[in-house]
């Protein structure tokens, strides 16, 4: 299924987890639980040692995954092994993509990712202006390249992104890095208005924590919601309390269901 298709019928729920957090095996279970809970696509983080765009929650997930031995090659193995039938988006930082394989440049990794079953990329430290080589590799191997639109993105920069984006656009609902917040920002509507004419689905992320948030975001016009920290919190808590993988997986599935249902509840009533 293509990325865009994941948004086709109804508001999409796109969860994020860091692959390998807190261990390779548990993480496989967690990702599968999200799919069971109703994920329409999954952003699967490939941990980088300097995650400058992440909030504390996801940063710590990345440290756990790295400490447990996650590497780009293990990640690809993970992608091949995980048993879900929704598209997987690789979320990582540019240096890992750039360094992979024998020759510098993104092509090797994109090829390997495509082979493993990745459908697209989100690269938070790669602005559209620097994205040429990655866009080309994605085109070559039929992958999507998602960009993040911030509340502050304007003018020429919006244009550059619009030209390059595919799959969906990641709309950052508020200023700051990732991290669950209790309030859904006013920025959402305004942000969506600025990209109303883009012909890709609009997924809104940053700070969505509950089904209620999800509902309000969708009601504000989003085609889907992206949720990271609220899920990573569950993984972290389970890890700290020594809960079993099954218990944590169940919690994730339940949270996923809540969020998906929230998104559905926000969907415009068919007229």
């Amino acid at each position, binding site marked *: 299924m293509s990325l865009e298709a994941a948004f086709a019928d109804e508001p999409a729920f796109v969860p994020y987890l860091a692959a390998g957090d807190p261990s390779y095996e548990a993480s496989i279970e967690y990702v599968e639980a999200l799919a069971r809970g109703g994920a329409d696509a999954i952003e699967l983080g490939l941990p980088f040692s*300097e995650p*400058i765009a*992440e909030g504390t929650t996801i*940063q710590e997930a990345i*440290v756990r995954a790295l400490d447990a031995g996650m590497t780009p090659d293990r990640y690809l193995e993970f992608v091949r092994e995980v048993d879900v039938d929704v598209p997987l988006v690789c979320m990582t930082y540019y240096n890992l993509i750039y360094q992979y394989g024998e020759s510098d440049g993104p092509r090797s990794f994109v090829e390997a990712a495509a082979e493993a079953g990745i459908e697209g990329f989100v690269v938070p*430290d790669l602005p559209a202006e620097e994205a040429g080589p990655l866009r080309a590799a994605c085109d070559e191997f039929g992958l999507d390249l998602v960009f993040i639109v911030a509340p502050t993105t304007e003018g020429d920069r919006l244009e550059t992104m619009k030209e390059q984006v595919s799959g969906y656009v990641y709309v950052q609902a508020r200023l700051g890095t990732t991290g669950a917040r209790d309030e859904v920002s006013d920025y959402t509507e305004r942000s969506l208005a600025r990209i109303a004419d883009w012909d890709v689905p609009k997924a809104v992320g940053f700070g969505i924590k509950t089904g209620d948030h999800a509902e309000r975001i969708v009601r504000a016009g989003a085609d889907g919601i992206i949720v990271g920290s609220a899920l990573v919190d569950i993984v972290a808590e389970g890890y700290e309390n020594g809960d079993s993988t099954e218990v944590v997986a169940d919690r994730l599935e339940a949270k996923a269901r809540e969020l998906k249902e929230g998104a559905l509840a926000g969907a415009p009533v068919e007229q």
Partner: protein
Amino acid sequence: MSTDSKFGEYGGQYVPEALMPAIEELTDAYERYVLDNEDGFMDEFRERMADFGGRPLPLQRADQLSQRYDTEVYLKREDLLHGGAHKLNNALGQVLLAKYMGKERIIAETGAGQHGTATAMAAAHLDMPCEIYMGETDIARQRPNVFRMRTNGAEVNPVTTGRGTLKEAISETMRDWARTVENTHYVIGSVVGPHPFPSMVRDFQALISEEAREQIQEKTSDLPDSVLACAGGGSNTMGMFHNFVEDETVDLYAVEAGGSSLSVDEEEGVAPNSASLSTGEEGVLHGARTKLLQDSDGQIMESHSVSAGLDYAGVGPELAHLVDEGRVEPVNVDDDTALEAFHRLSQDEGIIPALETAHAFGYLEEHHDGLGETVIVNVSGRGDKDLETVIEETGNRDLDNAPDMSIFREIGGGML
């Protein structure tokens, strides 16, 4: 983004989208105020660097070293800058720029604490609220600098994620900035990060070579044969080199921290050195493409050096480019050589250098034969901050020229 943001393939603006507007606003401000001296910005900067910072700083002939090496050795005395290192050139420039931009708040990261103290001083001087992010581990290791920052009225925010060192502090500062770009300026500590930081920090630091180039001609009626500066991120380095880059007869040496060894432990992701120019590979870190210490996957390695201020896995993109062009020679000396050089300069010249600085003098000791008749070494900072480290590290080693501190062990007090 204009092509000015790149140095060959290096540089660029690899930052989260949320920061791009801030980066663009800053680029605009850089071009107007710094490059075009709008509203007399650069005049005010220079004036404050004179009155508050103490510039111009001397270019001093090092009598004992000149004799020792049968070479005319000149010292550019950045150790005399207010705060004790070249760091204020940059910190004051950026805080002043923030003021011109109408920002109301300053944030910065710090590792060893030198950039944090310089920023806190500049912010106090210009009456700007200031918060410094510093890893918990670094806070414990660098307490005097923490107290200096607090004394200057800055908040020091302990960063408890990860290993609690510089990397995490940078991430945390970027995170703050991403939330607060509208009223806040992030004062980055070296010629690193996304454009315009590498160019802008270099321009502020270039006062060093602007003065030195004039001074050496006054003193010797000639240009030097070689110019040496230590290189961590590379800000004192670019500051010292900038005005000599066009002088093709002048050899430029960037002296990195060779640490305990140049080899790396891929398994642990640890490089026992910080020699990114000498041994690193191209990659993207903290907003810029540059030379990095990374493993074969592209994960950033932990670097190591006896000198905290050189202990960084990246380096300024312009330096990486100048090295590729063959204009700058990347060299390095190990911890032992740096410590010996620390003691040598202290004993022979009466100048206690920062451990960072000592690396440049270590290279001078080992290679003075190949440096020509006249050499300038940048004394990037003073070593008061390093005394504890030096005593400890000297105690673990068998150095020829280390003073005996043992009698003071018997006389009470905390420092040994």
